Structures are given as structure tokens and as C-alpha cells.
């Protein structure tokens, strides 16, 4: 019997990821209504996503690449605002991929250093496949899972 796996809650999963970056201490209301430290590095990320949402043409894509849809950009913005408010560590990088998806990536501090212990988490937003989490480690072990996002009161 195959038991379907329920998608994990995106916000809870993001908050459970190991963080190796300092988070500034500024108490703000969270989804649960309890004050929690927030990461100010979300602010430029949210601002950039707001610019993309206002004018998707600002997204620099190469010839032949697929530009993310406005709906996907708005979902990315909503997720960024929610993760910021919930006290999640900001992603290392947010990017539009050439297949029309948007990624929120967390890289370990050893990433790109030629070390054998790097880790990467990629949150992919796709019009085709929904929201997916991907974990990859230096030894090439990889896992992925569906994530569920429901915006809360911001």
C-alpha cells in the first residue's frame, strides 16, 4: 500500500533548516503572534521581488529563456514576506532560473570553497510542479519533497 506523503508546511520547514548566519535581533510579530528575531537581509530581497512584481520586464533573461510568470513572482514575494515575518534566516540567493522557475537557495558557509562538507537547500517555485524543497550535500546525497504554503496574516 502506498501512502501518499503529505506536503510539508513551507514556513515550518524553512524555520527548521540549520542556519549558519547571524540573525539581527529585532522583535516583530510572527505568524504565531509571538515576538521573534528577524533577519534584516530579507528586506532587499523583498524589495527586489516587489520590483519584479511591478515590472516583470526587469527580470534579466537570456534569449530563449522563460521569464517567470507574474503569478509566480507574486507567490515568491508572498513567501518572502511570510518567511521574513516568521523569523526565518534569509536565503543566500534568490534567482529566476531559465526554465521559468524561481529559487530561494540556502548555501552552507563551506559552499564554493572546495570543501567536502557543503550543503545546499533549494526551494523551487514552479507553475508546472508547484513548490518543491531540495536538499543536496557534497557527497551527492539528495532528497526532495513537496511543500505547502498558505499565507498567514502579515
Amino acid at each position, binding site marked *: 500500500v502506498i501512502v501518499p506523503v503529505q506536503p510539508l508546511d513551507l514556513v515550518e520547514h524553512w524555520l527548521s533548516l540549520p542556519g549558519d548566519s547571524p540573525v539581527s535581533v529585532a522583535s516583530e510579530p510572527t505568524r504565531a503572534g509571538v515576538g521573534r528575531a528577524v533577519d534584516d537581509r530579507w528586506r532587499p530581497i523583498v524589495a527586489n521581488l516587489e520590483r519584479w512584481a511591478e515590472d516583470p520586464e526587469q527580470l534579466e533573461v*537570456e534569449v530563449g529563456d522563460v521569464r517567470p510568470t507574474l503569478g509566480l513572482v507574486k507567490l515568491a514575494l508572498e513567501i518572502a514576506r511570510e518567511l521574513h515575518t516568521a523569523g526565518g534566516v534569509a536565503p543566500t540567493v534568490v*534567482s*529566476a532560473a*531559465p*526554465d521559468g522557475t524561481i529559487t530561494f*537557495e540556502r548555501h552552507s558557509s563551506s559552499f564554493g570553497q572546495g570543501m567536502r562538507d557543503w550543503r545546499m537547500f533549494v526551494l523551487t517555485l514552479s507553475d508546472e510542479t508547484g513548490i518543491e524543497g531540495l536538499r*543536496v550535500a557534497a557527497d*551527492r546525497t539528495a532528497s526532495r519533497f513537496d511543500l505547502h504554503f498558505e499565507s498567514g496574516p502579515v
Partner: protein
Amino acid sequence: MNGGLAEVIPDEAVLLRRIPLTQFPAGQIAFANFVPSPRDTDGLSLFLQSVRSAESLVAAAPRPGAGVAAATAGEIRRLGLTLVFSEEHGGPGHCHVPEIRYSVRNELPVKALIAALTELFARRIVVRPGLPNG
């Protein structure tokens, strides 16, 4: 030219990947930069540095702010990947990695390879993506 010429790319040859400015913070190298596009039906595009310089790749980018990252052929092969000359498709110095092509981009082993390739190229950023005024 075809896959038979892959063996003639020496391990010490440097391969370049153009990084369009689609990320922020701008200077970062992202997994998304190594996801194949719909035109990558044969595989992910790279360029031999001995034929195409980083400066020429940046100059040929359709939008300003593109960067370039590098890795050697030997490093790429040690990830289990293949390099194929394909100048007839992408111009002088063009190569591609057939294991990372558009049609298989969502397969988990391919995603793991994309992550490993991203980490490899992130070690050597030749030109950081970004605009002069930030």
C-alpha cells in the same frame, strides 16, 4: 563535430559559464544559473576559455550585468559529467554537458549534479554578475 571529440578536451582546459543577472544579491552564483533552459536540448552550455574569453562572453550577453564563472574540464569530469564540443550549435568554443539537458532537469540525480556543478563553478568567479552602480 560530435561527442567523439570530448576526449580531446584536456583536463586542464578551462570551461566558462556565463551567469546572467537574474539573482540577488547580485554577486552570488546560484543553482538557478545552472538549470538548463528550453534551448538546452542537448545539454548545458559552456565555453572553452582558450577560444572564448570571459570578456567576450560578457560583451555578447543580451543584457548588462552578466558574470562568468570557471572550472577545468578535469574538475567537471570528476563529477561524472561529459563534455561535448558543439561549435556548430553555439559558435566558437561552445561545448555542452549532455547529462544536464532540459528534458531531464527535474530528475533528482540531475538536480544533484546541477548542485555539484554550481558549487564547483562558485569556487572560481571570473566576473561577478552585477551592475557597476549596484
